[in-house]
Each structure stands twice: as structure tokens, then as C-alpha cells.
């Protein structure tokens, strides 16, 4: 118990210190972006890294969070916390609704069905529901100040997002070290065998999908708290590659891998973009290097190199 507490405190210090270290290099705006993106990568990584289901349509779930919080603020209440809760519930709801369709599939089929749903969502936001979503122009979101939480102030939103990231991290850490965590890892390796152990894998895959869409939606909602406006780029399926890149760079199937991948991807894209017009090409080279040199991602390489055990200091 005490050993576990020590590990958690160490995780807390490492993550907090890591993001404070990014602050002077990229500024508070970018650092907040990094944190939000890391939350998105954590949600995606649960599905891809731990359960072995690659989704090409995860921008849909991010976009649902972003549009829900904006529409909630516009039409229901400008209380940011109520709007956040509405976004989280919307993310869970979309997982509940489309989960039974997508989790029956695997491999390319899983990836493409997610993409198909994302395309539908993108079209709805851009054209069919443009009267409410603002179409291509998007729309702004304004939130009231609640007690000390004035999300218009950058240090407040930075602190709140960092707290949200830590909360997501520890929830996932707990989940993944439970019997359920072991179960979803075993589904990744051999789902048929899991069925013969007496588990209804459909149910457990569906739950993982719902958790993943909920976290992604939460990240989308936090983005709106940070930016204050939503555009169709939040739901654009072509941007799904960003979260896939980040997961692969950091190392799929690891919480620290997701954080490292999220920060590295954002750092590369922000840094290179200010110097090169076609910076995406260098990301392609980076991916090639990772595929051939660091198959388990940066964190996987570090773990192997320094023999950090999965049950040891950190995951």
C-alpha cells in the first residue's frame, strides 16, 4: 500500500515537473495544448496500445466533446463545469451507441468503420448541421467565471488541464493494473482464447471503447476551454494521423509512452512548423526511424535499455 503510494507520488512529481519544464520553452499556451493532446493520446492508446484496436476515426470523439461544450455554453449554461460534464457524457454516449457496431470488428475493418463514422460526423458539423455548428467558420464559446476558475486566464486553464491529465492518468493506471486491465491486454493477444476462459469479450471491448471515447471527448472539451472557439478542424478525420503518430513515437501500450509521444509530437510539429513549410515530411522520416530503430517507441526503448520493469517504478 505504502509502496504503491510512493510510486503514485513519484508519477505525480515526474509528470508535473515534465510539463513545467516545457513551459519556458514553448510558453503557457503551447504547454496547455501539449497537455490536452496528451489526454487525447491516453484515450486513444487505451484502445490501440492496450487492446490492439487501431481507430482511424478518433477525431470524431474529440470533435463531439468540442462541439458539445460549445453548444452547451451557447444554448444551455455558460457554467464551464456543467458544460464539461455534458461533453464527457456526450463522449460516453457516442461510445455506447456506436460501440456495439465497431467492437465486433478487428483490424482494418475496425479502423475503417471508425473512419466512416468520423466522415459522417465531419459532414454533419461542416454542412448538414451548419446552422447550429457554424459550418466552416465554426463558433465561439464563452464561459462564466466560477469562483477562482476564470478560464480566460492562461495559468488557470494550464493548471486545470494539468490536473485533468493527472486525474486521467491515475484513473487509467488503476484500471490497467486491475483484472480488467489484464483482460484487455489478453484480448489484444488472443481474443478467442479469452472467450474460452469464460469472458464475454464483446462486453469488455465495448467498455474499453466507451472509456476511450469519453477521454477523447474530455480532451476536445478542454481544447475549447483553452481556445474559446470550435471549427470543423476539431472533427477533421485527416487529423487522426496525429494521435496515431504520437502513440507510435512514444510507445503504444504504455501510459508514459502516451505522454512522451504526445509531447514529442507536439514539440516536433510546433518547432518544425515555425521553420519549415513542409514539416510533415520530416514527421514521415521520424516515423520511418521509429519503425526500424525503436519498434516499441521511445519509452519502450528506454525501458528495454535501462530494464525498467512494468511492475516496477512506472508503467
Amino acid at each position, binding site marked *: 500500500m505504502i509502496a*504503491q503510494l510512493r510510486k503514485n507520488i513519484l508519477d505525480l512529481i515526474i509528470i508535473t515537473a515534465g510539463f513545467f519544464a516545457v513551459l519556458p520553452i514553448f510558453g503557457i499556451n503551447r504547454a496547455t495544448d501539449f497537455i490536452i493532446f496528451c489526454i487525447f493520446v491516453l484515450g486513444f492508446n487505451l484502445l490501440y496500445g492496450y487492446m490492439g484496436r487501431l481507430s482511424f476515426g478518433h477525431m470524431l470523439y474529440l470533435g463531439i466533446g468540442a462541439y458539445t461544450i460549445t453548444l452547451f455554453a451557447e444554448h444551455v449554461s455558460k457554467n464551464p463545469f456543467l458544460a464539461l460534464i455534458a461533453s464527457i457524457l456526450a463522449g460516453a454516449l457516442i461510445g455506447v451507441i456506436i460501440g456495439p457496431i465497431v467492437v465486433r470488428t478487428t483490424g482494418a475493418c475496425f479502423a475503417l468503420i471508425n473512419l466512416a463514422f468520423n466522415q459522417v460526423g465531419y459532414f454533419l458539423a461542416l454542412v448538414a448541421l451548419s446552422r447550429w455548428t457554424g459550418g466552416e467558420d465554426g463558433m465561439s464559446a464563452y464561459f462564466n467565471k466560477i469562483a477562482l476558475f476564470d478560464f480566460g486566464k492562461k495559468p488557470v486553464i494550464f493548471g486545470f488541464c494539468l490536473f485533468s491529465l493527472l486525474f486521467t492518468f491515475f484513473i487509467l493506471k*488503476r*484500471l490497467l*493494473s*486491475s*483484472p*480488467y*486491465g*489484464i*483482460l484487455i*491486454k*489478453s484480448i*489484444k*493477444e*488472443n481474443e*478467442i*482464447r*479469452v*472467450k*474460452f*476462459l*469464460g*469472458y*464475454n*469479450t464483446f462486453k469488455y471491448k465495448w467498455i474499453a471503447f466507451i472509456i476511450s471515447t469519453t477521454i477523447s471527448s474530455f480532451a476536445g472539451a478542454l481544447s475549447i476551454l483553452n481556445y474559446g472557439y470550435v471549427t470543423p478542424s476539431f472533427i477533421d478525420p485527416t487529423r487522426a494521423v496525429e494521435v496515431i503518430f504520437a502513440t507510435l513515437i512514444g510507445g503504444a501500450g504504455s501510459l508514459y509512452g502516451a505522454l512522451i509521444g504526445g509531447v514529442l509530437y507536439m514539440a516536433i510539429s510546433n518547432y518544425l512548423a515555425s521553420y519549415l513549410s513542409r514539416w510533415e515530411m520530416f514527421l514521415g522520416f521520424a516515423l520511418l526511424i521509429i519503425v526500424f530503430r525503436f519498434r516499441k517507441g521511445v519509452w519502450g526503448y528506454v525501458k528495454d535499455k535501462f530494464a525498467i520493469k512494468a511492475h516496477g517504478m512506472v508503467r
Partner: protein
Amino acid sequence: MHIQVKTIYHHCLHLGINKIRCIAMKENHILETKGVTINFNGLVAVDNVDFKLLEGESVGIIGPNGAGKTTFFNLITGFFPPTKGKIFFYGKDITNNPPHKRARMGIIRTFQLVSVFDSLSVLDNLLLSIINSSNIPPSKDNFYFAEAHKEDLKNLCLSSLSTLGLEQKAYLMTSELSYGDKRKLEIAVALSMNPKMLLLDEPFAGLSDQEIIEVSKIIKEFKKGFSMVIIEHKISRIVELVERLCVMHEGRLIAEGIPNQVLCDPLVREVYWGKEDGLVCSV
């Protein structure tokens, strides 16, 4: 079925079980398949098989490669639904039950190629099966948020592993185990699920002579608690373990009865060893 070498009644008599108890046993079928058939686009892999298994009985299934033995296991465990026929477990029709429901009912199997989770530790492999069948399962909330390696569960896993001599390897990754140890782990997983009927698909395949002796000893030790069906090509080993032997050929059950008598059946000898096997058979 072409030849019924010995009926179950003869088998009872042979084992010294009196007729009254034998008739009582007849009613106590744990598993019954009636006309089970599976047709893969014209290829009939299992053809109209009627099979019964008594409570506590051990049965072996032999037959040449491609005879349909593993497919028959797949039908019993729900891997495929049969094209025709019914499967009953304790008299209940389970023909359309999915594999996980059958496993929860106590129909447990192992696989021809060892099937354990290489990416998990030995302990975690066992934990997954024990959680589903032990008397101390985590509650619904705990399944999602409790620490998997709680003391009581861990001790249960370690004691299961110790019966198969694997407790020293509990914290190793399963990928680091030898093939023989993986086979033992697979059997430990199966035994930890409190089987009512255990289906072992070629448990000696790929094992060294020493490992075969060890695994055979484990099976002998534990088989008293449940019914068991074994598919195996090593005939000298299977006859030591089972009370009844069935022979499959081209999807059909062509003979069944007491092992030594089945092995002397001319049709069995023909399909297994060819017409001119030249071996002397004594019952």
C-alpha cells in the same frame, strides 16, 4: 457408426461396475451429441456424430490427421455452430451457446498448439482464469479498479502453480517459458477453472519424453474430479489415461469401446495403420 466394438454396458462390466449402477450411470450423461455435423462449403469435417460422456468418465479420441477430432472439440466448445445436430450438457441444449457461456458452465479445453498469453506473466495468465471461477472473485467494481495482485488471489494462483511445479516461474513472462512449461501452464489454467468436463487436444504434442511423463502424471492425478476427453496420437500414452476409446475417420465415429479391444478392431487397424500392418493383436 460402422462398428460398436463394445457398448458402454460391456465397458461397465469390464470395469467391475454392476449392471444397476451402470444403468444409473447411463442416465447421468454429462455430454451428449446427437447427429452433430459440420459442413465447410461441401467438406463434411464432422459427420453425424452421436457421442455420450458419463460423469467422471475419461474418453480418448484417436484417428488419422484430418479425421475431424479437433473440429469435434470446436463444436463441443462452441467455436463453430454445427450445421446439423444438437449438443446437450447435463441434458440442457447448448447448441447455440457461445464459447464463454459454455466455459462458464464448466466445458474447459486446451489447444493443439499451446495457447497461453505470451505477453502476460505466468501469474497473470492464471489470474484471469481463477478470477472467473474461484470463490473469491472481485466484485464488479473491484474487477475494474482493484489491484489485480491482491494477496488472496495471488496466493490462490501460486498454490495452483505449485501443484504443477511452476511456482518459481510465477513472475516470469510467459514468453520466457519452455514449450513444456507452457503446456503445464495451459493445463494449470484449465484445472483452475473448476472444469466439469475437460477437453485436452493433443496434450503431449511437441513435448520431450520426460515432459510427457510429467504431464501424464498431472492428468492422472487430477482426472478424478471431472469428466475428460483427450485427443492424442501417442496411443501408448492415451490407453493409460482413458477408460473408453473412440476412433474417428473422415468425420465419423467408426468405433468405440475398451481401448485394447478398439485397437484390435480390423477397421480401426485399417484406417490407422493400413491393411497390411502385420502386427499381432491380442485382447
